């Protein structure tokens, strides 16, 4: 769980966000810190400059003795003001001030410098400020006549203390921010992970073979519920396809076993020694017919599978449904007449559409074939074509029809509704028609013809646009 947590994208995202947030906060705080420090320092310099200005005036008015007096006064008061003074003559001997020794000489003393008050008794006079040891001081010096020098400085211990307080506060804030970010990331990703884990657990169970499992939803309707819903729908579809496939496989096994068995017995008989040449030949002839039937069944299955798998429109052409219907009528009319069935075409509109002529003709031929098979003598079969509301082609007969409750079943593969299964056909005719219709985005509808059956292939009106958009897509891809 821990490694998963670290690997989880949610956590990494949270981490990245808090990282960016921390960096920007750090920048802001650093800026604040620096600006604050500088302001404090400037304040110190201003104080020092003001003092120097005052002392300089004092010096020009009343000379060195006046200056010494003033410095002594100020040193006395400096205990609270934290000021540092030192006046030395040209030999460096102290004349006045609260500092005993001139600090280490800096490069450019009149520009101001920084030094530390060392913790040594000889540095501090009795009037020396309260401070004891190692106190940082900002100072500036200036030359008087006769090479006497005056140093005016200010203890900045307090400023540094405030700086420290500020810095610590900032560091603490940043630390809190990081901790909060990590905790929030951890909590959020834990929550997300637990919801994802639910999906994962279910899919693992499904992979292990429990196809009936579904992912529970919270009922909140959030993205996770949507995901779970979609996955559940997908599983539903897969399960129904699998069931269908299993059923088809069962049917194939059933339907092919019988002819294979017949085939086997026939060959066995042919191999018996007491059959003569004529008999063997006849048996072989029958065998070939049997095999042809098997091949035809397989071909039909393959064709349906290919039609259902593909949506290729490359061989589509504009065609007239009326022409197609008249062709089929003309092809089957002698056969119908042999059985005293009237077969005719009905329709006058120009029903143009795009499609695969061979497949559509085969579909209509299959329907006509079925109609002829199931219509009694002196029956009537009509192939009619209409364009309103959509282009349709319908085969109507007045045979026994199909009861409403069996119509869905009639479209399944290998289903023959006639009770005796010995009749011609392999039970794939309507499935093929269904597959052809689906390829053409058309619906296959079974209705009552009172009496008889009406089978309609109903094309959709926007199919032209669909085709042209497909062509456009193909052109773009090419």
């Amino acid at each position, binding site marked *: 769980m821990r490694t998963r947590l670290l690997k989880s994208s949610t956590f990494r995202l949270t981490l990245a966000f808090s990282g960016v947030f921390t960096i920007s906060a750090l920048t802001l705080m650093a800026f604040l810190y620096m600006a604050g420090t500088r302001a404090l320092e400037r304040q110190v310099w201003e104080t020092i400059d003001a003092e120097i200005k005052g002392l300089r005036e004092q010096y020009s008015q009343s000379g060195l003795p006046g200056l010494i007096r003033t410095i002594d006064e100020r040193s006395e008061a400096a205990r609270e003001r934290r000021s540092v003074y030192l006046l030395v003559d040209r030999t460096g001997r102290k004349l006045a001030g609260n500092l005993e020794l001139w600090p280490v000489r800096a490069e450019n003393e009149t520009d101001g410098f920084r030094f530390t008050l060392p913790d040594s008794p000889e540095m501090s006079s009795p009037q020396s400020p309260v401070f004891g040891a190692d106190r940082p001081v900002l100072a500036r010096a200036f030359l008087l006549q006769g090479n006497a020098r005056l140093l005016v400085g200010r203890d900045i211990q307090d400023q540094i203390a405030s700086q420290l307080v500020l810095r610590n506060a900032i560091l603490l804030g940043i630390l809190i921010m990081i901790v909060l970010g990590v905790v929030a990331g951890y909590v959020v990703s834990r929550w997300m992970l637990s919801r994802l884990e639910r999906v994962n657990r279910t899919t693992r169970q499904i992979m292990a073979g429990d196809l009936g499992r579904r992912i529970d939803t919270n009922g909140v309707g959030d993205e996770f519920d949507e995901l779970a819903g979609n996955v559940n729908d997908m599983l539903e579809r897969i399960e129904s396809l699998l069931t269908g496939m299993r059923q088809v496989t069962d049917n194939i096994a059933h339907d092919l076993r019988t002819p294979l068995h017949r085939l086997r017995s026939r060959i066995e008989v042919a191999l018996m020694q007491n059959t003569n040449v004529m008999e063997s030949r006849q048996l072989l002839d029958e065998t070939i017919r049997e095999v042809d039937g098997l091949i035809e069944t397989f*071909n039909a299955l393959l064709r349906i599978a290919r039609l259902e798998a593909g949506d290729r429109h490359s061989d589509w052409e504009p065609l007239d449904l009326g022409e197609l219907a008249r062709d089929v009528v003309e092809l089957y009319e002698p056969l119908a007449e042999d059985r005293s069935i009237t077969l005719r075409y009905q329709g006058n509109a120009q029903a143009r559409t795009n499609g695969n002529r061979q497949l559509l003709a085969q579909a209509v031929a299959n329907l006509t074939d079925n109609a002829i098979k199931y219509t009694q003598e002196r029956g009537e079969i009509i192939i009619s074509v209409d364009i309103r509301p959509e282009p349709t082609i319908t085969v109507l007969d007045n045979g026994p029809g199909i009861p409403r409750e069996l119509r869905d079943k009639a479209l399944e593969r290998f289903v023959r509704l006639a009770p005796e299964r010995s009749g011609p056909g392999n039970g794939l005719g309507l499935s093929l028609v269904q597959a052809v219709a689906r390829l053409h985005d058309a619906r296959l509808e079974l209705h009552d013809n009172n009496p008889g059956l009406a089978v309609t292939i109903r094309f959709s009106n926007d199919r032209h646009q669909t085709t042209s958009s497909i062509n456009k897509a193909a052109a773009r891809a090419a």
Partner: protein
Amino acid sequence: MRILIVEDDRDAASYIVKGLKESGHAVDVAYDGKDGLFMAASDDYDTLVVDRMLPGMDGLKVVQTLRATGNRTPVLFLSALGEVDDRVRGLRAGGDDYLVKPYAFSELLARVEALGRRRVSDATDVRDTVLTYADLSIDLLSRAVSRAGREIDLQPREFKILEVLLRHPGQVMTRTMLLEKVWDYRFDPQTNVIDVHISRLRQKVDRGFEQPLIHTIRGAGYSLRLADKAP
């Protein structure tokens, strides 16, 4: 006829060879595309039977290359791919006919013979407007049919069937070939629709004449010929 089979499946090839030889043809075999192309280009065959899937060089390529050199020998493609556009691709590559596996040998034989003879007959037939066989003649322009001087009245489709049979006298036309040539449909009608059409035609063309012309060839199809005279 001299026929070249280009087929990598040696079993299938040997059956085809045996069958074609028994039907009186001279047959050569190539087992891959390169050999096939070489043999087809260097010898004069009446018909080529080419499998679409071949090792080395696939069947489409063989025929395309052959056509590019100006070789016009009729080609029958054999293929396990039966989709309409597979067929179209085969014909576009220069094939003349297309047969999907598994097929009946009689179908293959009929198609091979029709292709081989077409070469000879095409040249004359295209210009002729009158086709004749024995005492039967049809006029393609006036659509008139007569046998032994007697006028026969045919429906347009019956006329078309008779025309196809007359263009291949003595040869076997299978049911699928008739459906292709007469109706331009390439599917297998589940019932015997073609038989019914032929029997109607037969009623008009053969009834009342001593010599029947339209013969049923068992297990194969139909043929226009004089009684029991082998092609």
